[in-house]
């Protein structure tokens, strides 16, 4: 009897397990991202070099081991857009170009504003004139200043200018013509500096309406032909550290109203100079939150190798002008970025266009993020 009861009970359980329906799903569920983004997330801007109309920023969690867990979401960018990511607001800014018929038609330049959590478009700001600078992506064609209240945009026609956008009012409030100078290096309380074609600089301070309050000219201070400054410095505590083609580091103090060129120091020993170790790459430089500068380096350098991939990343304590470590890369790299926490990750877009992840303090390779639908992630942004 007991045996029959147990068999009956088992049959009931099995019957229920085999025959019960899968529960219905709710329609229209959309994911959102946590804020703030975890420190070891990285945003890869894939400009889509083979189809520039369809670029995208891909958000990845470098702590995860598998692609599906690494991949967090994307937002679109058009025609080699300039991208800036706010640190104090949950917003990201994409300065991009659209034509009414894809790659042709009537042109409109806009700043598209994305929400960090939902990755939805919050707003857009039309920037008139169709002058947006289109070039390989950089942190210095677009920049937030004055506690992120203003967004500066670099234009190139080839005449150059900087558009000033009031972020809170969602409006362009000024355009400043530049005297044959390029790019945006944040300077002082509410200003920027640009490097000019004769190796001089010009600095501007703005009032709250984005108008020029004062303008300063800094005389030529380097040789573009003999030892050019790379246009991508590293900013640490208000000082810009520009690597040079011949492996020096030039400091430019941007803390005051105008740029003040400072000291220059060597990045390599005599032996390393004899082997022609030089900086090179695309986004070739970065910094952690502890005052260290990271630089992609290749040996056998010469005139024309300044975009070569780096076999190593060299790390410098900029206050003490000292190299603290060399990180050999498992695959040569073109792009570096470093997370801003106290246990930083070093992200490297390598020559296969995958992202190698290293422990920035020990140089240990942790993993490679690959096959996530990317083609040309030519600039990386740390999450914070």
């Amino acid at each position, binding site marked *: 009897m007991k045996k029959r009861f147990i068999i009956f009970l088992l049959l009931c359980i099995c019957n229920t397990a085999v025959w019960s329906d899968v529960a219905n799903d709710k329609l229209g569920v959309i994911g959102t991202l946590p804020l703030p983004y975890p420190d070891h997330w990285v945003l890869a801007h894939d400009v889509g070099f083979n189809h520039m109309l369809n670029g995208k920023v891909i958000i990845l969690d470098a702590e995860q081991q598998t692609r599906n867990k690494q991949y967090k979401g994307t937002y679109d960018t058009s025609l080699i857009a300039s991208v800036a990511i706010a640190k104090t607001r949950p917003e990201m800014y994409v300065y991009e170009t659209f034509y009414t018929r894809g790659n*042709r038609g009537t042109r409109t330049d806009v700043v598209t504003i994305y929400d960090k959590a939902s990755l939805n478009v919050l707003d857009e700001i039309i920037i008139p004139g169709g002058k947006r600078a289109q070039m390989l992506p950089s942190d210095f064609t677009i920049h937030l200043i004055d506690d992120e209240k203003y967004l500066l945009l670099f234009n190139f026609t080839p005449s150059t200018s900087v558009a000033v956008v009031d972020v809170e009012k969602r409006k362009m409030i000024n355009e400043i013509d530049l005297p044959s100078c390029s790019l945006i290096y944040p300077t002082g309380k509410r200003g920027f500096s640009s490097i000019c074609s004769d190796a001089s600089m010009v600095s501007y301070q703005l009032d709250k309406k984005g108008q020029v309050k004062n303008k300063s000219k800094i005389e030529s201070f380097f040789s573009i032909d003999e030892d050019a400054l790379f246009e991508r410095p590293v900013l640490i505590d208000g000082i810009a550290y520009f690597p040079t083609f011949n492996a020096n580091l030039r400091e430019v103090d941007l803390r005051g109203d105008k740029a003040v060129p400072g000291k220059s120091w060597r990045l390599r020993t005599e032996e390393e100079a004899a082997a022609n170790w030089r900086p090179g790459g695309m986004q070739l430089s970065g910094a952690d939150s502890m005052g260290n500068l990271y630089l992609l380096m*290749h040996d056998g350098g*010469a*005139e024309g190798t300044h975009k070569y991939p780096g076999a190593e990343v060299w790390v410098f304590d900029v206050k003490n002008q000292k190299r603290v470590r060399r990180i050999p890369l498992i695959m040569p790299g073109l792009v570096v970025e470093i997370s801003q926490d106290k246990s930083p990750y070093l992200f490297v877009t390598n020559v*296969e266009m995958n992202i190698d992840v290293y422990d920035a303090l020990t140089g240990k390779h942790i993993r490679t993020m690959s096959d996530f639908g990317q083609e040309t992630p030519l600039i990386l942004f740390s999450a914070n």
Partner: protein
Amino acid sequence: MKWFDHITESISRKVAQNSSRRSFIGGFGTAIVGGAVIPILPVARAAEGHGGGQPTAPIDGAVDDPASCDYWRNCSIDGFLCSCCGGTSTSCPPGTEMSPITWIGTCKNPHDGKDYIISYNDCCGKTSCGNCFCNTNLLDRPTYRPHTANDINWCLGTSSAAYHCTVTLVLGVATKKA
């Protein structure tokens, strides 16, 4: 350069699976080959500061092949070669528009030993060609000196800034500074 061996092996083994990444990466690979394997053309020669001198015979036919990154005119190019895109090294593919504003390079012709000013005009108005990407950078300089900066999209003065490919036009023989 140990990494050079690594990159060529790695590229040939893995990248062939993805044609769009390969076309981009191949440009870097070819440039590296041009710099490392054939040291006298064009990078090292410029590093010697030579502005003229005796011509040397090309090491292989690549310096005369407009579809190669090692073509002598391609010493400071960044983009897709129009020779691989339905155009030639001096003409744009059908349906595109040649940009009148551009950057220039100075390249040595190995046949006569002279340096020529090369104008790298972009052909515009269509999506990227995608073939024969090259990035060689002899005398290229950053954006703050635009006329020698090849990172810029030079589709300017055209009805569309969409970049398709780049041609290489001889403007004249370069003259030495006094």
